């Protein structure tokens, strides 16, 4: 019984050696040798002077049991985004409670793992706790869609700092507010980013999620005649060789991947391995350090669109965040901070019931760190900005606003 193993092993290694010897010149797959324009990194940002401050005037009073909550991923494959968000919210609470001895707002967290199937449990639990009068969350479009009705039934206001699917505001919910632009803005922004890069041909690949399909549609429309082709992949797909064959034949300047980083990373990496030299644009679902980690040096060709502000460029915010959590602000940390600040200013103004706080948020009109907040009757912001990002020395950095 030693024999077959040995034989097979020897045969295998021989074959390895023979073919590998024939290919001694191993190309290192040097990235970014394409004709795309380079976009300079953004080094500073105009911080609005009149942004709402969670500290307020320091004289606020409120009942001792006043509680707000974060509901969203704390664990699971997408935990990092949740951590960025509840840290941003936590920072606002800490600043508020420190400045206002008469109003100590409690903060509770509920874990959904970012999974629409698991989100209903924690949301139901939170709505049953009468002390909770406002919520920051939920982070993802799928889970927001699955739980919006539960919030609506009990009249509990919730502000999402990150869910971008446009249809979420078409359910007639009065408790749902979106603290960022939706994918009707992000799709055209992706086309604008490709244009900025000087791309004449853009290939669009979408996954099978509501988010990916919706975003791909708005991006394709905005691209018009610059669209070089489209393709579809599935969640959990690992091998993309057939799609990549088509892309290599179509010779696009840029590939736009409409989906999440779990598939985008192996996709980009296999694309580069096959000799693709063009650029790669991913939306906010791809803009994550995990993408860089999973795709390795292949990610050097990547750019991102995101309706999120680069929090690390706001000096005061970045410093406070860093000293509190020993980490740089992540994607959607600023948006979460703003969302929580809005709830806190409402509480400070005496709106300490679910009904009053909901009315307060619906009528809110004020400046935040990330943008001006004023919602229409569906919970959509009147104005919103999309930022472009690129990979620079193994880090994701902003290249300023686009579209």
């Amino acid at each position, binding site marked *: 019984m030693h024999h077959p*193993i040995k034989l097979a092993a020897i045969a295998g290694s021989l074959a*390895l050696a023979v073919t*590998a010897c024939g290919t001694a010149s191993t190309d290192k797959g040097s990235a970014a040798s394409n004709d795309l324009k380079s976009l300079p990194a953004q080094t500073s940002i105009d911080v609005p002077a009149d942004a709402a401050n969670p500290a307020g005037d320091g004289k606020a009073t409120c009942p001792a049991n006043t509680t707000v909550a974060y509901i969203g991923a704390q664990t699971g494959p997408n935990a990092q985004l949740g951590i960025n968000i509840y840290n941003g919210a936590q920072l606002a609470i800490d600043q508020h409670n420190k400045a206002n001895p008469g109003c100590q707002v409690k903060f509770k967290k509920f874990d959904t793992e970012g999974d629409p199937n698991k989100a209903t449990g924690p949301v139901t639990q939170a709505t049953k706790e009468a002390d909770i009068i406002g919520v920051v969350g939920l982070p993802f479009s799928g889970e927001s869609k699955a739980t919006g009705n539960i919030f609506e039934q009990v009249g509990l206001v919730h502000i999402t700092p990150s869910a971008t699917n446009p249809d979420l505001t078409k359910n007639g919910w009065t408790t749902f507010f979106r603290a960022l632009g939706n994918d009707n803005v992000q799709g055209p922004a992706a086309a604008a980013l490709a244009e900025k890069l000087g791309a004449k041909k853009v290939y669009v690949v979408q996954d*099978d999620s509501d988010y990916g399909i919706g975003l791909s549609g708005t991006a394709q429309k905005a691209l018009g005649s610059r669209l070089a082709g489209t*393709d579809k992949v599935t969640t959990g797909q690992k*091998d993309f*060789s057939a799609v990549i064959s088509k892309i290599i034949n179509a010779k696009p300047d840029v590939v736009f991947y409409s989906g999440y980083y779990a598939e985008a990373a192996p996709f980009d990496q296999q694309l580069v391995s096959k000799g693709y030299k063009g650029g790669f644009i991913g939306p906010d679902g791809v803009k994550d350090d995990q993408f860089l980690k*999973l*795709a390795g040096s292949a990610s050097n060709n990547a750019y991102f669109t995101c309706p999120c502000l680069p929090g690390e460029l706001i000096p005061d915010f970045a410093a406070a965040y860093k000293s509190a959590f020993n980490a740089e602000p992540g994607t959607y940390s600023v948006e979460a901070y703003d969302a929580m600040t809005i709830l806190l200013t409402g509480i400070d103004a005496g709106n300490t019931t679910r009904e009053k706080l909901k009315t307060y948020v619906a009528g809110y009109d004020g400046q935040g760190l990330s943008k001006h907040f004023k919602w229409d009757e569906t919970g959509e912001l009147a104005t919103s900005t999309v930022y472009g990002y690129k990979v620079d020395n193994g880090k994701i950095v902003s290249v300023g606003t686009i579209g």
Partner: protein
Amino acid sequence: MISLVTDSQWISFDWSALGQNFWSVTFDGLTFGAIYALVALGYTLVYGVLNLINFAHSEVFIAGAYACIFTLTALGFGPSPLDFPLIELIGCLVLACLAAMAASAAVAFVLERVAYKPLRARNGSRLAFLITAIGASFAIQYLIYLWRGATAEPAVIMFIPSPVFTVFGTTVDSMQILIVVAAVTMMVVTDQFVRRTRLGRGIRAVAQDPDTATLMGVDRERIIVVTFIIGGVLAGAAALFYVMKVPSGVIYNGGFILGIKAFTAAVLGGIGNIRGALVGGLLLGLIGNYGQILLGDSQWTDVVSFVVLVLILMVRPTGLLGSDLGTARA
């Protein structure tokens, strides 16, 4: 585009895409087919000897993939390609291959001893074996899940394939050649082993008639163990090639679909038939890729593969080359 369902865009055949990409898709399909074929051998050999469809073979395979990833990570490989001298690179790959083979063979061995041998000792029914196989598959899968979690292992890039030659306007790269040549070599060696050696004769004898083989002095238990280990070794090699081709594909349930495909390949070629596994594997790799390009959506890869399986089995119920390990001739 030619639409099948005229009033909607439900199914349409994109012949021009297939025409443009025919050869690149063919070469990729053959590469995957070679990997399917190696895994298919494990199903076929065990089926030949035990008349058992070892559904846990996909986990034997994924264990090898984990061993391969761990070995290469320990050697310093990662998501970014490294600039290793060629000799060192070959050394590392051989080491990873051996580790993968050892891990897969070990899992196959333990599986046989823990799950199947007790059933044989109690004369379990075929249904009991089948359910045990499925149960073992899930048990191993979720043990890995508990250990490694729901996320895929970080990619390990072994090398960036370099173009070797161009045919029909399509480049064939070093990785494709390496995988196909190495896989086919190993299958030929396995085939010859079963046909020419003493142990191979034992395997054939047990496959033909276990009782008579035992009467003739063949140690049936030993033959069964050897068969599982050979299947494991080949699955380990397949795992190396799989990680080479799909560097980020190692996840707790990553063997499942590949296992089903390999099983399909075995059935397609004729289960129990070693050469059938090779033919079935290569064919399945090609069919899946052609279907995907033709229908323009990755979701079609599996649909097309299984539709073709059903069609072929309707015409040839024993698979393309017939299903008999026992009657394989030297």
